[in-house]
């Protein structure tokens, strides 16, 4: 993840003054945060999710680093599953993701409303969107082949051509790599909005296709 970041950051003129790789499930980031402070960095880019994301963001704030350093990271850092636990510590954190519940399109409005109704007020996150989209792909594909899953080649063809309005935008697969072409990658900032903390989109990049590094399944 981080090498992908460096691939575009450094040629873009950025300078990396330090790197660290805390282990999964790390609970105490103090040594790393002290190093960050002492490095003089102006911003931090990181990848954490779940429990790690909560602890890192909170401790980042507790060490008083937010005053002078911008915290950024991959989307999972501030998803709805961790925002409540992070609380005020997450304010101002900038992340990139293909989804935020605050997206302004009719499909998403409906999705968020129905999701919250069905799941007791829970806020959908990127994973919820992915789950929903996956189900859409499967259902549409099955309809297109009339339930006949024996012909695998036809099934793959039909899935490859999937195209529909998802909460994140227009959902399509890249025929070359079979990766999803993200209609947008949003740059989001955590702000206080009606209903609590959420990821507010402040910028976006259109039609992002993952070139893929060419992985193969064993025969």
């Amino acid at each position: 993840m981080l090498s992908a970041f460096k691939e575009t950051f450094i040629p873009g003129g950025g300078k990396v003054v330090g790197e660290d790789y805390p282990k999964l499930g790390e609970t105490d980031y103090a040594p790393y945060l002290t190093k960050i402070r002492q490095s003089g960095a102006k911003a931090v880019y990181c990848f954490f999710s779940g429990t790690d994301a909560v602890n890192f963001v909170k401790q980042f704030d507790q060490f008083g680093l937010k005053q002078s350093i911008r915290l950024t990271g991959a989307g999972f850092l501030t998803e709805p599953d961790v925002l409540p636990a992070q609380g005020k510590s997450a304010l101002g954190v900038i992340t990139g993701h293909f989804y935020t519940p605050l997206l302004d399109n009719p499909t998403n409005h409906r999705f968020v409303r129905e999701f919250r109704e069905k799941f007791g007020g829970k806020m959908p996150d990127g994973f919820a969107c992915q789950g929903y989209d996956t189900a859409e792909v499967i259902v549409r594909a099955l309809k297109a082949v009339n339930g006949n899953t024996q012909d695998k080649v036809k099934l793959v063809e039909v899935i490859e051509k999937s195209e529909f309005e998802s909460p994140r935008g227009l959902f399509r697969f890249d025929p070359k790599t079979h990766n999803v072409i993200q209609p947008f990658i949003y740059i989001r900032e955590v702000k206080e909005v009606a209903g609590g903390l959420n990821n507010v989109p402040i910028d976006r990049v259109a039609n992002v296709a993952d070139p893929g590094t060419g992985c193969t399944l064993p025969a």
Partner: protein
Amino acid sequence: MILRLLALALAVVALAAFPLVAGNYPVKLLQEILIWGIFAMSLDLLMGYAGMVSFGHSAFFGIGGYVAALALTRSAGLTSALVLPTLAAGLAALVIGYFSIRVSGVYFIMLTLAFSQMFHAYTFQVSWLGAEDGIVGIPRPAAPGVDLGALRSFHGYLLTLVVLVAVVLWRVVRSPFGHVLRGIHENEARMEALGYAVDRYKLLAFVIAGMVAGVAGSLYAQFSGSITPDAFFWKTSGEALLMVIIGGTGSLGGAMLGAAAFILLQSLVSTYTERWMLILGATFILFVLFAPGGIVGVLRGRVGLRA
């Protein structure tokens, strides 16, 4: 005696025929039980017979798995699948055992734990072993005349090996060597006074147990097609420990039964409720309080079954 052998033979035949009557998922479950059963049996040799409680047995499971993974991805033959992992695990057991035997009791537990965790830490970090993702895409070994990629053929192959290992361990346990081990378990000082080189016996037991654990690890890599640092983690050692205790220490059959009980409990309970961990934990506690001899203890009480 004849009755016992007959019963065992029947059981083996039933296990072999299982794929003919059951679907893919139950067969895979059975295969997992068989593999973990071997792992548990090897630990029981150490714990139940030689009295050495190890919390680091996963080290040899992991080594077997990783060596098999590395070897099979280069040359997918039976040597890679069975010989190399076993030898590697045995070598590791020799080194680790040499140091660990110097202490006993809770210190032995902690030292063996430390060694397996070191392996875990190493394989977790280094990229040549796939770091935390481990090694994937491990091919089935190419055995002459049979395609081990097919479920039934693999089942036969696995069952054959399991029976072989069980027979070997059974012979070891019944041999004079096995008796000396039990003597050491009961009263080490007495055995030393009788002139036995206790440390050498313990080390040999440790190496044999390690080698069998290596076989289990290698089979696991072949079964699932992948191996990760989790194989080294202390939870793996802990689960094997639980299997041995649930089955009843000091009984090879018990170890296999314990593996079955643990895996079935885990899989079946989780299909019905999310609270499977709660039930598993409560089951262990109840077992300890009311069925201390494990499953075998219960069976012995009821049916007067094998030793």
